[in-house]
């Protein structure tokens, strides 16, 4: 619920393929809007100042910090969250993260997977150091990162581009 004087604006966008038209408070971040208003809680809020990467979502195909973007800025955008990400890379990463125990508490995982998918889409055969570098904007406090790197490398090894 909003107080009567909370300034809002209308936006039209698509979220995981669903077209939405709604009023949003001007000061609500994209991730807060997705979590609390749209009901997609797979993106998490870890720092609210653009450091930890737990809030990653895709906007028009690019991974962005959901806490550094306002919901009103998503007017006209195509938004994808972990719940709706069904591309082969994301699915393969989800499976590899599970098998390699590349998560413990899982709070960073959705953001980490979206970031890793973006890396592999751009560079299907990264080195371990490149994976570590690409994921350095996503904090994980549980795993020590190594199994995450293992999982990404395993997906890379299975990608068609690698085999070619």
């Amino acid at each position, binding site marked *: 619920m909003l107080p009567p004087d909370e300034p809002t604006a209308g936006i039209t966008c698509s979220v995981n393929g669903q077209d939405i038209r709604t009023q949003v408070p001007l000061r609500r971040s994209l991730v807060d809007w997705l979590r609390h208003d749209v009901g997609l809680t797979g993106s998490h809020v870890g720092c609210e100042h653009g450091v930890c990467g737990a809030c990653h979502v895709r906007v028009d195909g690019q991974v962005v910090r959901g806490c550094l973007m306002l919901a009103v800025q998503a007017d006209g955008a195509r938004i994808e969250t972990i719940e709706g990400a069904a591309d082969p890379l994301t699915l393969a990463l989800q499976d590899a993260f599970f098998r390699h125990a590349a998560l413990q508490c899982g709070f960073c995982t959705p953001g980490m997977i979206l970031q890793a998918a973006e890396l592999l889409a751009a560079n299907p055969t990264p080195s371990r150091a490149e994976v570590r570098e690409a994921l350095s904007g996503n*904090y994980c406090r549980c795993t020590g990162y190594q199994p995450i790197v293992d999982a990404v490398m395993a997906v890379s090894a299975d990608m068609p581009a690698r085999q070619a």
Partner: protein
Amino acid sequence: MTHIGQPLPRAATLRLVAGRGSYMDDVSARGELHAAFLRSPYPHAGFRITGTAAASALPGVVAVLTEADLAPVCQPWQTRTGSAPGMVSPTQRALAKDEACYQGEPIAMVLALSRAVAEDAAELIEVEWQELPAITNLAAALDADAPPAHQGLTSNLAWTTEMKGGDIDAAFAAAALVVEDRLTFTRSTGVTLEPRGVLAQYNPASQALEVRISHQMPHQLQRHLADLLGVSLARVRVICPDVGGGFGLKMHVYPDEIATCAAARLLGRPVRFVADRAEALLSDIHAREHIVDARMAVDAGGRILGFDVQDVQGLGAYSIFPRSSTTEGVSALRSLGAPYRFSAYRGRLRSVLQNKVPTGQYRSVGHPVGIAVAERLVDLAAAARGEDPLEFRRRNLVAEAEMPWVNPLGARMAELSHQQCLAKLEALLDLPTLRAEIATLRAAGRCIGLGFASIVEFTATGPEGYGRAGVLVAAVDTVVLSLEPSGEVTARASISEIGQGTTQGLAQVVADAFGVAPDQVLMGSGDTATTPHGGGAWASRGAAIGGEAAWGAGRKLRAEVLAAAAALLQCAPETLDISDGRIIDASGPRMTLAELAETVTFRGYELPAGVQPQLTVAHHYRREQDTALTTNGFQASLVEIDADTGIITPLRHWVVGDCGRLLNPLLVEGQVRGGVVQGIGEALFEACRYDETGQFLSGTLADYLLPMAGEMPDITVAHVETPYSGSVLGAKGAGEAGTAGAPGAILNAVNDALAQHGAAVSELPVTPGAILRALGRLP
């Protein structure tokens, strides 16, 4: 046993990779209000709230509450423990009364329709502040002219104790070599990626409180909520759903969380509070603020004679409730030198109040401090003797044949495998090759260091730890199992899951004890309404204590099922077995578990008279001996220092650990690696810093530095498996050992590199600035 020991992924993580977890903040209650707190901007100040009208008048604000408002529904609390008799820790309240004693202490709260409005309103609360002298600097807190952390205190010394055994004066008098150092440990904190948060609802008609909270031990909190809010224990339900990291941070009683529950009780409406990152860093427990002066006596043969240690520990404004922050200091002194044979010890602990947020139990409580100190002294002694640091350690490690070993502090250690771990570490490192590589790199001008740490961890604490101290912390656990009509097994455990994977390990134990596949065991935990009272997640206890409860429950259910099946099949239970979900005898399968359970559940008349199968069973486990279990291990760290920038890069890290029986090596290795990286963070990056006026400087993740993927090394992990002989499964505990040893190994590696330049550092974290100062490149 076919599933215990298997590296199976944790089944529950399938939800988490899909973004289908359910963390505290993922669920809303209809009609909920959002809480924001007005926190003291001063480390120490008297205050009077002079006006709340402007805050209350802000559209969307429902209530502005102060201490006086909460007092009728919320008792104050004070930390008392028999483990620290005579300790001074003032009374604490959900909202401070008249005096704020640390920056970030909540003094008022706003309940509003949105968090943003609540924050806006909190800024409109009018307060008359009277700034008071503050003491934040640990080194100065015991000075005669230090201001008191609380008005009316005559000293900031909260508690002091001496832990000793043997003739320390004789040991130093007989020493051929004495090494000494002062090590300074800066506060760090757990930084769970999911901040603390709570959603509280009170039903005045049933006088029942329901609390959904990101917390490690639902039953401990249930007890304290009942006591503090005056609600009967059985009417308090605490639900800890998926928890986004714990590390000890989420096991304490926090004023803002209690205030949220009290507000829900007062207003009869759901109230939500989720800490933002700034207030998390400001108000979560900090840990490990110590100044340690330590000396070690060594005889002419290079044998350790004794340790003489002075530890000043910062508590913050209060000793944390309920477990007491002093535990960390005692643990640091107990772990110091524990792997080694020595005959005399004197450790003096002084635990000091300061105007900072309280410190508290954080992963591997105290061990990283004690181990870093001892391992530094050991390296100094080896260097003074001109011998290899591993040779010095090898000579002094307590041998397997000497176990059980009781050291001069009375610390009992059993079934440790120091020599085996050392041998395995040397093989892993391929030490001659590694030493040659280091020599080559050094010859090329690179500043490279190799460091070691040997550890003993006291873990999986039993009933005597807190029980004898009069602290209401359960060290026992229960697992309840039900055979469902489908043939699946539902399990409810008082152990809780915070990401470490304990529930997967327990599922594997139940699977073997009963006779099904692990994916047929559905684990539930973290809810006081569905699980019996128990300890939850602390002290790496899930496998050692929860595992025994799971085994016992599985065997009980097996006996019930076999008895029922025997009655139906008209044979002796001894001729039957359960395998892969079926009841079998020598001839093969006789019936499925589903057929048996359906018969019992839906067609009970088919059973013979007098047969009453108990398809729900419970098993409670308490360890009857060993106050704590001991685990041991070795770590090695290879680092490179950039002498121009002072930046330290960890290149490689090795761990050999003995945590007893491995229930699941995949998950154990996850604990080890994650723990090591947390320890590396503590050694190189993480610091809760304050300026000279007591203002907190580390309130963002741009200021409080966490290890990132790009700067962490790959970590090689190996195991020695010495099962604990006092239990069925023999698991000891694996969650914290990585953190215990890493700071010491890193510190020794850094000093090994600096020694080439005649320099040394003695403060954690080791910053680039400290390196440059040590090298004489900065004043």
